[in-house]
């Protein structure tokens, strides 16, 4: 009984793997912003200037002193 039950589970699982494996993943899975970045090097947003000072890339924001008042 043990052999039959687990044997059927094995064959069924292999059948699912071979068929489901060839189908593309769902849109929910593929269209995500937080997908794993396989092998692509993550760009740092900090660069170094020739004089050793650091340049932080990003959008500049205007500081308005009058807002604080």
């Amino acid at each position, binding site marked *: 009984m043990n052999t039959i039950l687990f044997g059927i589970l094995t064959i069924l699982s*292999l059948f699912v793997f071979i068929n489901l494996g060839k189908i593309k993943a769902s849109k929910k899975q593929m269209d995500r912003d*937080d997908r794993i970045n396989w092998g692509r090097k993550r760009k740092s947003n900090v660069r170094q200037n020739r004089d050793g000072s650091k340049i932080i890339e990003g959008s500049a924001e205007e500081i308005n002193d009058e807002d604080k008042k």
Partner: protein
Amino acid sequence: MSKHSALNTFGRSGNPAFTRNFENTETYAQSERMTLDGAVNKTAILLALCFAGAFAGWNVPALAMPGFIIGTVLAFVTIFRSPAKAGSTAPFYAAFEGMALGGITVFAEMQYPGIGIQAIGLTFGILASLLFCYKSGIIKPTENFRLMVFSATMGIALLYLVSFIMSFFGSGIGFIHSNGLFGIGFSLFVVGIAALNLVLDFDFIEEGAERGLPKYMEWYGAFSLMVTLVWLYIEILRLLMKLRSR
């Protein structure tokens, strides 16, 4: 600020079997590109070879140790030396590792009859259910997910290495091999981590096919899946043996 604060702090990390080969992606002709069909077919070939090796190991258990050593060497060669030649090394890896698994299963079967087919059924059951969870988007692998799985995998590898070295001096880390609650809990944790590694394998293959990587990456993806399946099978067998020995 990136969402992946752990990555910003510790840098990008990942299983060495996955990280080395996605750089310098060039454009390949349609027939030279990796596909999902190709990767699944190659995994099926490797599984067939593994079963053939297991048949030999089952009948001649003395093949287990040489099979394990040669298989491990081939795995390291494939990962660190020649991923592009995975098409030549991965089939041999599967056959030799199959011999090792066949031999190990015979010893387990002698102590606990029927345990081998249970371990095989559970391994493939986990494979199919996790594949469904991945394809349907129930489990979403992210960079933090990969970092977590990789850290846990490396932690387990280190623990096994320390335990292995200590065994030469007549000592060891007792709880990881015991059949007490702690030992079974540890085995459950290891099985869980091995299973989560399968999700990373699926994502690796899926993205490789999407980005049109070279054809040999089909073999490499299939090889990665085999490495994880072999590990998962051994851990499930250990867990079942602990449970049956109580």
